């Protein structure tokens, strides 16, 4: 039994010995060239002149390309085709690539680009949300709305009302491995690309477009990434396309990696948001009506901003049943890096909005925030109420027919027909999806007990009464996160499994490994299906030549989708072997069992290797593809109606913090987490996602601050100025438990996706800091994020003196 066991990461031995190979570690031919972009030093303007003679004559430089030198109009956008590889006439943000130096070494290329003489006629840049609103600079024709009931009327009729605003900063991914690619030209103009990308099919598509080749002439391989977090879903495109184009031009292998400062200045980050809210509520804190107005700063190109902003809307309810609600979303276009996917994909920002409202209602009523949250929770599902397995899948795929669109990108905007309405009487989200698997009521009760929330609430109160300078805060917040790509057709996956004569199994699927343990989990599934030890399963690099038309490894979907596809492939081979063995014993194929590295039939059994040899000798195919598509999804993103998610992953966290009211410095003292992974495929891997996601989320909401100058220059472009959590920033005490449930829906072994949801458990940190600030005075502190010392100190002042 390999499924459900806490087995270490498949590459753990390679990691600790330094032998795990990342793109920049791949030995390349001796004549390989190295690339570096020359970047815009202006946020907005027109390129008047670009003199690259000094770059061309720099030591080691082989060639220099500007936009007009590109063989095809190379584009790197995953959506609107609005991102030329190199600037064409105009620049749209400081850090935009203008030209490409191709040199004998990475250092030579970096040095060369600084010799360029570029003249840009500067124009006023649109940098902030206010700038964009004033200029009506936005994507899509206007704001999007999701509506349920009549929020305006309900707010007016409610006993109490409040309104406010929260500003939520963005976040740099800071994957430890910067972006990297290596292109190896092949005979006949074909191209092989190694890339550090979550989306090899997107790389294949963009490279093929840039070279004027069919996708079949481009093969993309990804063995692993040194972290992705969404930052390598679309942002790896530019390097891969640049390498491929340069390899085409020079006829030599080309590799590229961004120096860290370039990486931070060029690539997109998490969207920063402003959320305005207006709510009406009753004496119990139950929300009667609520309106959110979300403003997302999307940067200069569309990238994945539309689905990101959609997901922020889709999580504006978090765990709370809202009867009368309006969510309005503005996707603002600014002269900054193009904000992109980042773990949670807008969901975290949407959730922070309503958690702020819960916090403020509790403050206004003077009652415990947990009580207010629970008063607003969706109702728990009846226990044991598992959904049935769906009918067998048909083989047809229902993707749209436009072959030029980025079909496999989340940037594609597709609307579908009329989704069926939810069952009458169901509790529904603001987008009219029935919530049938809610378990947070019971989970919260469990955590309140295990974390001694009530006792510690009293201790915090006593501490604060006795301490003038240092104040503690405590908060408990839930997470309900929707699992599926909201672009429904992406919810498909393929796998390729070969069993060789010696019984070894070559496993391949469309998912990519970025540290999340996907390969380990999927190999556990394969070993389980064949009933063989894990050692027989050979995990191999993701390769567009093996499994085509893959979706990005994103949206927490990796194990759900690829686990099912691998299961299907394994079962095909298993069933073939079973039929053969059954025939020999005049048994039914269904009675052949696979386990303990043997194949059992009746009272007899064959060793796995023997069974495989037998199958080969009897001319049974030992190779199969597998395919999976998620059932039950129906979604109209324009109307805001339907079922975008297969199910909800859930979790709850209680966090205690302490702040210094003289300086605003703060730290996390303790966190208790209860998280729902369904029936975990690998509890160790899942715990790692939870602990790591929490700290990453805590960084987003505390120390990680992106600062742009008034000219649009990113001032925090290196780890010296942009501070992700260090070792001592993790909670002093951290108690993490897995909820012992099974997925109500028929997922792979009834597990649940775990990649993104735990990040949002860290919202408890922000709310605990708010609680500590609130201990300083009578007013609501209205703490913004990230809660740097400066913002905490400002919130302490607001608590004491009220908003100015």
């Amino acid at each position, binding site marked *: 039994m390999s499924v459900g066991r806490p087995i270490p990461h498949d590459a753990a031995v390679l990691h600790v010995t330094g032998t795990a190979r990342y793109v920049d570690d791949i030995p390349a031919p001796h004549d390989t060239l190295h690339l570096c972009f020359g970047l815009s030093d202006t946020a907005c303007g027109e390129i008047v002149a670009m003199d690259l003679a000094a770059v061309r004559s720099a030591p080691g430089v082989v060639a220099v390309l500007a936009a007009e030198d590109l063989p095809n109009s190379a584009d790197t956008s995953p959506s609107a085709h609005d991102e030329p590889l190199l600037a064409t006439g105009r620049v749209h943000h400081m850090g935009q690539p203008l030209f490409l130096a191709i040199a004998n070494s990475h250092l030579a290329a970096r040095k060369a680009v600084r010799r360029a003489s570029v003249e840009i006629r500067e124009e006023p840049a649109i940098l902030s949300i206010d700038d964009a609103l004033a200029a009506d600079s936005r994507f899509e024709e206007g704001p999007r709305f999701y509506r349920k009931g009549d929020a305006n009327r309900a707010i007016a009729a409610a006993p109490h009302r409040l309104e406010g605003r929260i500003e939520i900063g963005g976040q740099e991914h800071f994957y430890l491995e910067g972006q990297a690619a290596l292109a190896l030209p092949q005979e006949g103009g074909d191209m092989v690309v190694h890339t550090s990308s979550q989306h090899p099919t997107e790389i294949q598509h963009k490279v093929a477009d840039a070279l004027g080749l069919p996708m079949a002439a481009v093969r993309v391989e990804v063995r692993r990434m040194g972290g992705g977090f969404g930052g390598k879903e679309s942002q790896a495109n530019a390097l891969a396309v640049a390498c491929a184009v340069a390899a085409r031009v020079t006829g030599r292998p080309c590799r590229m990696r961004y120096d860290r400062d370039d990486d931070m200045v060029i690539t997109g980050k998490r969207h920063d948001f402003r959320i305005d809210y207006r709510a009406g509520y009753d004496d119990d804190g139950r929300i009667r009506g609520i309106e959110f107005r979300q403003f997302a700063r999307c940067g200069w190109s569309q990238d994945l901003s539309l689905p990101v902003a959609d997901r922020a809307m889709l999580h504006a309810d978090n765990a709370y049943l809202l009867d009368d609600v309006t969510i309005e979303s503005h996707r603002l276009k600014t002269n900054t890096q193009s904000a992109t996917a980042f773990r949670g994909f807008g969901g975290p920002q949407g959730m922070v909005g309503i958690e702020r409202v819960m916090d403020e209602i509790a403050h206004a009523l003077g009652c415990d925030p947990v009580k207010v949250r629970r008063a607003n929770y969706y109702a728990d599902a009846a226990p044991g109420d598992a959904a049935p397995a769906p009918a067998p899948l048909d083989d047809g795929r229902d993707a749209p027919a436009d072959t030029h669109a980025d079909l496999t990108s989340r940037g594609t905007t597709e609307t579908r027909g009329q989704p069926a309405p939810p069952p009458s009487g169901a509790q529904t989200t603001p987008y009219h999806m029935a919530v049938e698997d809610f378990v947070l009521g019971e989970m919260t009760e469990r955590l309140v007990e295990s974390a001694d929330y009530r006792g510690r609430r009293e201790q915090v109160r006593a501490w604060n009464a006795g301490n003038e300078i240092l104040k503690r805060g405590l908060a408990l917040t839930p997470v309900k996160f929707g699992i599926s790509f909201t672009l429904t057709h992406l919810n498909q996956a393929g796998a390729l499994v070969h069993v060789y004569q010696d019984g070894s199994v070559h496993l391949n699927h469309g998912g990519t490994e970025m540290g999340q343990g996907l390969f380990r989990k999927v190999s556990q599934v394969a070993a389980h299906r064949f009933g063989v030890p894990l050692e027989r399963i050979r995990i191999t690099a993701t390769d567009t030549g093996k499994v085509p038309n893959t979706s990005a490894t994103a949206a927490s979907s990796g194990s759900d989708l690829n686990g099912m596809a691998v299961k299907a492939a394994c079962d095909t081979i298993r069933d073939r072997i079973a039929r053969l063995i059954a025939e020999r014993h005049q048994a039914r194929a269904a009675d052949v069992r696979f386990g303990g590295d043997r194949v059992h039939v009746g009272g007899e059994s064959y060793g796995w290797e023997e069974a495989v040899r037998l199958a080969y000798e009897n001319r049974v195919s030992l190779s199969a593809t597998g395919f999976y598509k998620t059932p039950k999804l129906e979604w109209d993103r324009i109307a805001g109606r339907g079922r975008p998610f297969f199910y909800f992953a859930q979790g709850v966290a209680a966090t205690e913090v302490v702040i210094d009211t003289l*300086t605003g410095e703060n730290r996390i003292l303790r966190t208790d987490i209860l998280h729902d992974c369904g029936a975990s495929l690998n509890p160790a891997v899942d715990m790692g996602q939870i602990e790591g996601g929490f700290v990453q989320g805590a960084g987003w909401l505390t120390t990680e601050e992106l600062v742009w100058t008034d000219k649009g220059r990113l001032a925090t472009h290196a780890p010296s100025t942009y501070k992700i959590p260090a*070792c001592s920033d993790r909670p002093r005490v951290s108690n993490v438990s897995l909820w012992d449930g099974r997925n109500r829906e028929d997922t792979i072994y009834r597990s649940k996706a775990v990649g993104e949801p735990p990040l949002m458990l860290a919202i408890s940190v922000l709310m605990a800091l708010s609680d500590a600030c609130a201990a300083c005075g009578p007013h609501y502190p209205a703490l913004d994020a990230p809660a*740097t010392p400066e913002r905490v100190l400002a919130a302490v002042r607001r608590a004491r003196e009220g908003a100015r």
Partner: protein
Amino acid sequence: MPTTFLLNGAPVSVGGDDPTRTLLDWLRLDRGLTGTKEGCNEGDCGACSVVVTDGRGTRALNACILFLPQLDGKAVRTVEGVAGPEGELHPVQRAMIEHHGSQCGFCTPGFITTMAAAHLRGRTDHDDQLAGNLCRCTGYAPIVRAAEAAAAEPVPDWMRDDPARALSARPAATAAAAEEAGGPTAPSSDEAAPPHATAPADWGRRAPLAETSAACGADMAAHPTWVRPRTADELAAWYLAHPDGVLVAGATDVGLWVTKGLREPSPLAFIAGIEDLRFVEVGEDEVCIGATATLEDLRPAIAPLHPDLAELIRRFGAAQVRGAATVGGNIANGSPIGDLPPALIALGATLHLRQGDTRRSIPLEDFFIDYGKQDRRPGEFVEAVSVPRQTDRLRCYKISKRFDQDISALCGCFRITVEDGGVTDARIAFGGMAGTPKRARAVEAALTGRNWSQAAVDRACSAMAEDFQPLSDMRASAGYRLETAANLLVRYFHESAGTAARLLEVQP
């Protein structure tokens, strides 16, 4: 003169044509040792950490800002050399696997080397030892669990490098010279050997320049762009002849000129090996610190006298930085946000400068004239800094977005003497509040001679704006800096009254 060192136990020699080639690039590009990773190329993430052993002991250093000439006579162990010769895993490697300490794995080699260095030295202050290694996946808890699990395991034999073997591998002529100079000895197995308990008695009264060793001149003849002086006298002579030269001690600052600024500074003097400037002498009247004493040398020596300064040092540079960066460098580079100067100024430090045979001593605060401008003459260098022995009243308050390995938004250092309820003396200095480290003289004046009371403190706080007109930048706004600077005086007052005001001491 080539640079000779042990690489994973085997001697290697590299030529001196490119003195600013980094160890990281050399490992990855010339040696194909790609286990050592580049994460930031500025010494802030630790992905490139390697284990370095010399006569002073073993420590982890960042290979991305370590120039090859700095390694002469040392032993370097990369992640590839942390496992045994037969491939047997080091205890920290086994523990990292068993405790799920790696996810994406890219930071892991740097963690392994840093953990192995700490393990060899028997260190169990894991948060501090690992403060210079960033991990974006795990949230650190499983890594710390691994470090704890490995702590009790014995140090594998292969980890005990003998850098003397590097010397014996040198070409004969230079090996003889090195032996003459004393040569490194095998390191002790536990703590790094402390720097000289006492300074060389004659550190300030050495022989005239004419008598300096010929080694420096020979160096210069071989590589006209760089030298590796072994004594302060050699340095003084060279610097007098090359006043436009750049002194490289730990390279934690100059390293970035090269890796980020893409500059090619020349000529260079690598001075970290100048043993007669590497001391922390705790005398009866003063503490004297040689310029090439590292922060890690200073920290344990100063901890019994001024624990707040030791804690400040712990926070502002992680282990890899403390093991390389020098006291002299932190002062001489003149940064307005260097954290040592405000503390030393508050302690009443004197800076000792030398130009050729000429020496002078000035109050440390007078060294900092303006942003980017110090009172330093051509060819003049920092030899030492001294602070008078005193009752410990020093409090150092570093304000930054992150506690460990972050640059200060502001750093306030206070030493206020209260006798019979009245302030008899106040020395207060700040970093990050002006273009230089600077004393808060108006605040000091407002306090001195007054009763030590909340009212007096409040009055003094309002004088802060006379002393400072700070800037807004990515670390903090001007308003926050000014408000918090005043609040730090309030904190000092509360602490002197015994009120709990130490965030890092609050327990869950």
